[in-house]
């Protein structure tokens, strides 16, 4: 039963990783950049919802919507001001700028909300499910995380597959110049990608802080790195790959913590990543890119 309960906890954590990783994957696939500030957008989302619940007393759902709205605007503004001017530069220049944005968000949060760790009130109000005479407990946060993840995955798959904007996104990710020649506005498509990715980051921030109720200005960086790992694990640029990578990473982390060593759980997660990349150098579901001479 402990095995099953760990598995479910892993799924819950993995779902949150998958939602964060989607932001990385979409931005990477379409703008070809590693957005290191993504983890800090999670943090901003968590703080906005925290302020909204604790200070303004709004219902959790409204707080979530507010967090999403703020993060969406933030994502688009960051893209417009910091990344768009560097569109033609080397990818490392964009990476460093992203790191700069990450520092900026962390330190701005430090000034606004101070470094004091806050206890985050869970947005999930219903009681945990007790199954098998209370031997197996599924918390509401876990359930909501998994459900949200499924809804987002299905929604995004439909969005990129069926809608015009989604098709434009895929076209831009395949070949930016060709897409532009077909009349697709590359700047607009990238801005939309950032908007979606940042809104998802807000959702992930709220879910993550509901599950692990501590909130401080660096709360986003570790899940950010883990989610990035998950995106690479599943094959960066692929939406189903992200789901697989995220869930796998969450389960490995919880199992590693429970059965191998609490202290070494991070090392275990990263060791698995390395082993998988050695066997499948493009991630589990990543596309193999043939190099042309």
């Amino acid at each position, binding site marked *: 039963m402990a095995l099953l309960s760990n598995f479910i906890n892993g799924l819950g954590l993995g779902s949150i990783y998958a939602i964060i990783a989607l932001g990385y994957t979409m931005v990477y696939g379409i703008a070809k950049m590693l957005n290191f500030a993504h983890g800090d957008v999670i943090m901003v989302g968590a703080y906005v919802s925290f302020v909204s619940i604790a200070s303004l007393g709004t219902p959790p759902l409204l707080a979530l919507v507010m967090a999403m709205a703020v993060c969406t605007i933030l994502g688009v503004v960051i893209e417009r001001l910091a990344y768009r*001017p560097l569109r033609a530069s080397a990818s490392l220049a964009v990476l*460093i700028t992203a*790191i700069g944005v990450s520092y900026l968000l962390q330190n701005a949060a430090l000034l606004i909300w101070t470094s004091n760790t806050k206890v985050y009130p869970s947005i999930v109000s219903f009681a945990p499910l007790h199954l098998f005479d209370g031997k197996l407990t599924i918390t509401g946060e876990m359930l909501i995380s998994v459900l949200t993840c499924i809804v987002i995955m299905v929604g995004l798959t439909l969005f990129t597959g069926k809608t015009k904007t989604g098709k434009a996104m895929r076209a831009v990710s395949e070949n930016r110049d060709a897409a532009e020649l077909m009349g697709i506005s590359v700047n607009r498509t990238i801005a939309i990608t950032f908007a979606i990715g940042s809104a998802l980051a807000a959702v992930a921030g709220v879910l993550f802080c509901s599950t692990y109720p501590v909130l401080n200005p660096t709360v986003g960086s570790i899940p950010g790195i883990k989610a990035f790992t998950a995106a*690479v694990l599943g094959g960066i640029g692929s939406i189903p790959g992200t789901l697989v990578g995220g869930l796998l990473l969450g389960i490995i982390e919880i199992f590693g913590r429970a059965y191998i060593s609490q202290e*070494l759980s*991070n*090392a275990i997660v*990263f060791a698995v990543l390395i082993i998988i990349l*050695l066997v499948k150098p493009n991630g589990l579901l990543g596309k193999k890119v043939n190099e042309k001479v």
Partner: protein
Amino acid sequence: MRLWKSKTSRQNLITLAMVTVAFAVLFFLNEGKVLSRSFSGQLVPICVYIVMALSLNLTVGILGELSLGHAGFMSVGAFTGVVAVAYLQQYITSPVPLMLVAMLIGGIMAGIAGFLIGIPVLRLRGDYLAIVTLAFGEIIRNILECLYVELDGGALRFSMFGSADVGGNFIISGPQGASVPSKLSTFGLGIGLVLFALIVIMNIVHSKEGRAVKAIRDNAIAAESVGLNLTSYKMKAFVTSAILAGMAGVLFAMNYSTVEAKKFNFNTSISVLVMVVLGGMGNLRGSIIAAALLTVLPELLRGFDDYRMLIYAIVLILVMLLNANARVKQIKLACSQKLRSLFSRKEASK
């Protein structure tokens, strides 16, 4: 002078002279107590970060592979160095040879770590390579956080999670980090290491190996098709870079009374990478200047108190944006052309 005629050796000599002069000036200012206390406390860290930036430049700028785990090698060097000093101080009493031996051992251990990590890492490409170096950096940090080393009557005892306490002196105690026996780092040693790193990297760049490595960076397929062994050359550059980072780690650790593994986290790797990119990839002199400036910058901004890291972030973003700005590029080009026409007669005739 034959050396002066070749353009690259001339540039190298200028860089070496620059470091030496800067050292001399700072050394006398420091001896004369002209420098403020906080600034003279920064002298060794400046040297450490210069060596870190130089060594990372070998991987990122010259080999062309993005490494996000450079602090991992630094931490291997740092912890090995502390253990080496704690163990060897009963045999070697004078501080400078002790430090040199510790740096050698730290460098070798970091080099071994670099070799072991290089085996899987250098098979991968681009961003996948970057994430695996990040992963290794975190793994090293995680393991060091669980490592306990105690000195028990002249013998070293290693254990994980501190399970085997035999009542000796703990040199490394897991998350609390390593307690440094005595502060041995000096500015002189630091500059010595900077010059050593500079000379090593300059010689590599202008050797057969260096040309091979640059060929691999520019076009791996073309390099392979003319018979270069990619893995072997990449490995040589990667291990050299790790060794230098390990030596810098020893110097860093010996500058404090305690060193914690969490000091060498992802953020440290990233800030070294920022130095390399700001200084210009593959440009050694740029790395030195950027590393020195970025190490001092938070200190200089101390007056702004709470806002200093915010200002640091804004400066970083603005520098990157201005670097890419077309108009700024034009002005830079015009300035450098004007400077060149002022100083050189030869290049005009070419």
